[in-house]
C-alpha cells in the first residue's frame, strides 16, 4: 500500500462504482415520486392548519429532522422485517423475510425521509407566494383548486426549485448509507471490490468521483430547468 496508488485497480473499480449508479438513481426517483406529491399535500395541511393532519405533519417533520438518517435506516431495517415475518406466519405466506430485496427497505426509508424534507420546502415556498395571488385568482372566478393549479403552484415551484435540488442531492448522498441494508449501490459495490486487496483508498477515491459526477450532473440539470421556469419569477426592478 505504501507503494502509492494502484492505478489499475483505481480505473477498474471506477467502473464497478459506476455500475451502482442505476440503483442509486432508481431509489432516488422512486423516493421523489412518492415524496413530491405527499410532501406537497402535507405542506398544504400545515399551511391551512387542517386539524390532526397538521399536527401529525409537524411531529413527523420534527422527528425526521431531529434524527440522523442512519438511525432511521436502522429502525426501519430492524422493525419492518419483524413486522413482515409476523405477517407472513399469520397469513401462512410461504415467504422468508430474508428473501425480500433490500431495495424495498430503501424505498421506505428514503421516501419517508424525503417526504418530511419536502414538506418544509413546500411550506416555505407556498408561504412566499403572495396572499393577493390567491385572492386575485378567486376574484376572476377560479375555484380554489384551479387557483392552486394554475396560479399558486407554478409560482411556488419556482421558489422551491433550488431547495428541491438540494433535497435531491442530499437524497443521492444519503443512498450511500444503503450499505447498512446490504443495498448494492455505489459505495457498497466499490467497497466489496476493495476488500480483496485492501485497496480502500482507491475505492473511496472512485466512490468520491462517482458521487461528484452524479451530483454535479443533477445540479446542472436543475439549473437548466430553473432557467426555463424562472419566467414566472416576479421581476425585481
Amino acid at each position, binding site marked *: 500500500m*505504501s507503494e502509492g496508488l494502484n492505478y489499475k485497480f483505481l480505473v477498474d473499480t471506477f467502473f464497478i462504482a459506476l455500475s451502482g449508479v442505476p440503483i442509486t438513481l432508481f431509489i432516488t426517483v422512486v423516493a421523489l415520486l412518492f415524496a413530491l406529491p405527499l410532501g406537497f399535500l402535507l405542506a398544504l395541511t400545515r399551511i391551512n392548519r387542517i386539524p390532526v393532519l397538521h399536527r401529525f405533519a409537524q411531529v413527523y417533520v420534527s422527528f425526521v429532522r431531529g434524527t440522523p438518517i442512519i438511525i432511521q435506516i436502522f429502525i426501519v431495517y430492524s422493525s419492518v422485517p419483524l413486522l413482515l415475518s409476523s405477517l407472513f406466519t399469520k397469513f401462512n405466506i410461504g415467504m422468508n423475510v430474508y428473501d425480500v430485496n433490500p431495495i424495498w427497505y430503501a424505498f421506505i426509508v428514503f421516501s419517508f425521509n424525503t417526504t418530511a424534507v419536502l414538506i418544509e420546502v413546500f411550506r416555505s415556498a407556498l408561504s412566499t407566494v403572495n396572499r393577493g395571488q390567491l385572492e386575485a385568482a378567486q376574484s376572476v372566478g377560479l375555484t380554489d383548486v384551479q387557483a392552486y393549479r394554475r396560479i399558486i403552484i407554478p409560482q411556488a415551484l419556482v421558489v422551491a426549485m433550488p431547495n428541491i435540488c438540494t433535497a435531491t442531492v442530499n437524497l443521492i*448522498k444519503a443512498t450511500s448509507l444503503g450499505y447498512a441494508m446490504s443495498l448494492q449501490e455505489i459505495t457498497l459495490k466499490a467497497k466489496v471490490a476493495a476488500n480483496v486487496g485492501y485497496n480502500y483508498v482507491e475505492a473511496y477515491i472512485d466512490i468520491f468521483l462517482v458521487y461528484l459526477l452524479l451530483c454535479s450532473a443533477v445540479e446542472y440539470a436543475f439549473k437548466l430547468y430553473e432557467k426555463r421556469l424562472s419566467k414566472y419569477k416576479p421581476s425585481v426592478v
Partner: protein
Amino acid sequence: MEKYFDASYIWESIPLLIPFLKMTFMVAGLSVLFGTLLGFILTVAKTGKSKFARKLATGYTTIIRCTPSIVLLFLVYYGLPAIGDRFGLNLNNIDTAVFVIITFTLQFAAAMSEVMRSAFQSIDNGQFEAAVSVGLSNSQAYRRIVFPQAFVVALPNFGNSLLAVLQEGSLAYTIGLIDVVGKANLIIAGNYNAHALEIFLALAIIYWILSIAIEQFFLKLEQVFSKGKQGLKTA
C-alpha cells in the same frame, strides 16, 4: 432468535447511552470550532478580490457538497495515513476521533462559508459606506457595523449546520469511534443482536430531544439578538 418487541429495553438503554454523548459532543464541538475558523477563511476568499482564491473556495464548497459524509469520512480515514506514509509519517495509530474531527471540520467549513458569505452579502453596502463616512476605518466598519448585523442573519443557518454536523457525526461509528451510536452498537452486539430495534429507538429519542433543544436554543438566541435591532418589524 425471534424475540418480541420489549419497550423496557428502550428505557434501560438510555442511561447506558447518555454518558457516551460526551464523545459525540466533543467531536461535534471541535468540528464546529475548527470548521467555523476554516469557514471564515473560505468566506474571505469567496468575497475577496482574488479571482483564483474565489474559484478555489467555491470549487472546494461544491466538491464537499457533492460528497456523502460517509465517503468523506473514509477518504480521510484511509487517505490521510496513506498520504502520511509518502512523507514517512506513521499516522495509523492516531486516535479515531481525530479523523472524525477532520472530516466534519472539512464539511462544516464548507457549509459555514456559504452561511457567512450570504449573511455578509445580505448587509447593505450602505452600512459600510455610512460607517467610513463618519470616520471609521475599514476594519472598524466591518467589526462594529457590518459583522454584528451579519452575525444575526447567520444565526439560524449556523444552528441548522450545527444540527447537521451533530447528525452526520452519527456515522463516526463506522470507523470505530465509540460515541453514543458506537455504544449502541456495542450493546446490541452484547445482546447477540437481539432487541436492536429498541436500542435504535432509544438512540432516536436521544437525538430527537437533543435536536429540539438545540433548535429552541437558537430560536431564543435569535429573539434576543434581533430585539429591536434589526429592521424586522418595518421592512
